[in-house]
């Protein structure tokens, strides 16, 4: 079978490419990135000019990369839900969603197409920001391949954020509530996944965390932290070769995950799995055969 474009992706890209929003978005994105770059550079220079510093500015330029990367990650995490959260509710508001559902597109491919188009749109931005990133790489003395890995993580992150947005879009009638709900969802994924660990620490008087950290596999913050640590220092969040914990302080699985790069890969797999589950939930929700009562249509 010939590999073909998801029609929704094609249409969404056609439509965005023609809208002024894309140009303005790109402009804003570039501006923020450049400002971050210049600010980081000036801070690094200032700190190295200070009295106590060794005066070696080049050693610190390596930090340009994580600063810029974190800036990009934050922008992506903030923008993607806005794009996808408005996608299904936007189609509903425009009353084109019904027509889409009567075609041979399955609800899952509709939902997937919406997320893919958001990911591709984000990649426009990331690719446009590439020269600045490359500059940070070169002056920081990092390998090129890391840039590639970084783009992969951005895709991963935007798939997750997009899936969160699309589920909220399927749940809400209005785009704006969908956006707000996605940020509430962020709080669950980014914040509440820490909860078991804190509870366990509290209960054991900070002696043993057991396996309570495993939920953090789904947390992009820890994923990125581990990713950057591995890139920059070759160490893990859990210390060099997991030295932060002794064997009896954590559970068996956590201990082994904290060795080497296992955490990054497993975390990526977990995040993908979570995204898939969210996509399936969204597809289930938009399928009219699954909801017993139809929504009330607006009349002009």
């Amino acid at each position, binding site marked *: 079978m010939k590999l073909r474009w998801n029609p929704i992706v094609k*249409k969404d890209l056609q439509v965005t490419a023609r809208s002024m929003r894309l140009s303005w978005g790109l402009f804003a994105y570039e501006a923020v990135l450049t400002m971050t770059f210049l600010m980081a550079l000036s801070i690094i220079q200032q700190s190295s000019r200070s009295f106590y510093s060794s005066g070696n500015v080049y050693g610190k330029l390596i930090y340009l990369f994580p600063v810029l990367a974190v800036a990009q990650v934050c922008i992506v995490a903030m923008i993607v839900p806005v794009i996808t959260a408005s996608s299904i509710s936007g189609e509903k508001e425009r*009353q084109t969603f019904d027509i889409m559902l009567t075609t*041979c597109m399955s609800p899952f491919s509709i939902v997937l197409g919406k997320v893919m188009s958001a990911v591709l749109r984000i990649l426009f931005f990331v690719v446009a920001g590439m020269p600045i990133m490359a500059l940070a790489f070169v002056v920081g003395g990092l390998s090129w391949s890391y840039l590639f890995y970084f783009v992969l993580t951005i895709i991963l992150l935007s798939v997750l954020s997009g899936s969160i947005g699309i589920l909220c879009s399927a749940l809400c009638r209005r785009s704006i509530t969908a956006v707000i709900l996605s940020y509430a969802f962020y709080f669950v994924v980014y914040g509440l996944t820490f909860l078991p660990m804190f509870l366990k620490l509290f209960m054991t008087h900070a002696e043993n965390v057991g396996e309570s950290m495993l939920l953090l596999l789904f947390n992009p913050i820890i994923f990125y932290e581990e990713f950057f640590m591995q890139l920059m220092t070759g160490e893990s969040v859990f210390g060099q070769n997991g030295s932060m914990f002794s064997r009896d302080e954590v559970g068996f699985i956590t201990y082994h995950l904290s060795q080497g790069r296992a955490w990054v890969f497993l975390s990526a797999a977990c995040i993908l799995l979570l995204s898939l589950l969210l996509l399936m939930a969204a597809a289930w929700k938009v399928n*009219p055969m699954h909801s017993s009562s*139809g929504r009330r249509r607006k009349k002009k």
Partner: protein
Amino acid sequence: MSLCGSIEKGRGIGMLYINDLTKNYGSFTAVNHLSLHIPEGDLFGFVGPNGAGKTTTIRIVCGLLRASGGSVRIGGTSAAVGSKVMKRMIGYVPDFFGVYDNLKVREYMDMYGSMYGMDSRDIAKLTDDLLELVNLSDKKEEYVDTLSRGMKQRLCVARALLHNPKLLILDEPSSGLDPRARVEMKELLKNLHSMGKTIVISSHILSELSEMCNSIGIMNRGQLITAGRIEDIMQQISGGKRMHIQVASGMESAVRSLKEQPGIRIESVRENEIIMLFNGADEEISALIGLMIQNQVVLTGFYREEGSLESLFMQLTGGGAQ
């Protein structure tokens, strides 16, 4: 409903079978045990006042709404509502629909075509033919959001025909159109009908449907009141046709000769017009005219009331009509 049989009589195989369809919204019943059978090649008009449940029924048939009970079958297959087999057989034009900004007519068609898994080149060829059919050939490179309401409506019909469905369902295709666009839409539908498509149209304007449909179903408050061929329905329920007779002179003898005839009920007599209900064949009408002329009545007009179907509708749907 026994009325279903009357449509079937001596015609093609069934295209759409709706059996005992029910839809509840909480305690409110929007569609109440509706059974309907539409033969292949029909142009079926679905009439009812606002809130009758037409849109609900149509959305269930198109797989956009889950029924609370009953079944729908199309084209003799036993495929479930909302399945791909079923979706391929239906072309749906909703009552209200939007279009995308920044998308050209050609791309619009291409998008929906590829949603049916069609090849881009096939779509391009079909698009040309279909745009020709709906009279939009010159708009191919225009943006869809710049088209007028009528054009969008026709574009939506072209879109619904892309995958060559057996059954075309249009929900109030002429709502919001000006008279000219209505006529164009009507011509288009008649044209499609003559090409052998089975078409279902919903509307609350009966006279509009009666001009093009060959069968209709009247719905009110979720129930199908009657369904069948237009002629049959007229006969069946009105129990007579309202006639206007304009008379220049000889009024008394006209009234007298009318009263002698069986099957005639005089409704009102004005200065030079008689309104009567007549329950008979067209040949009897000509005999009647001959008789009156013999009796020295000077006739200046003799016609069947235009709105009779409309008044039938009002009579059937009772207080529900607005």
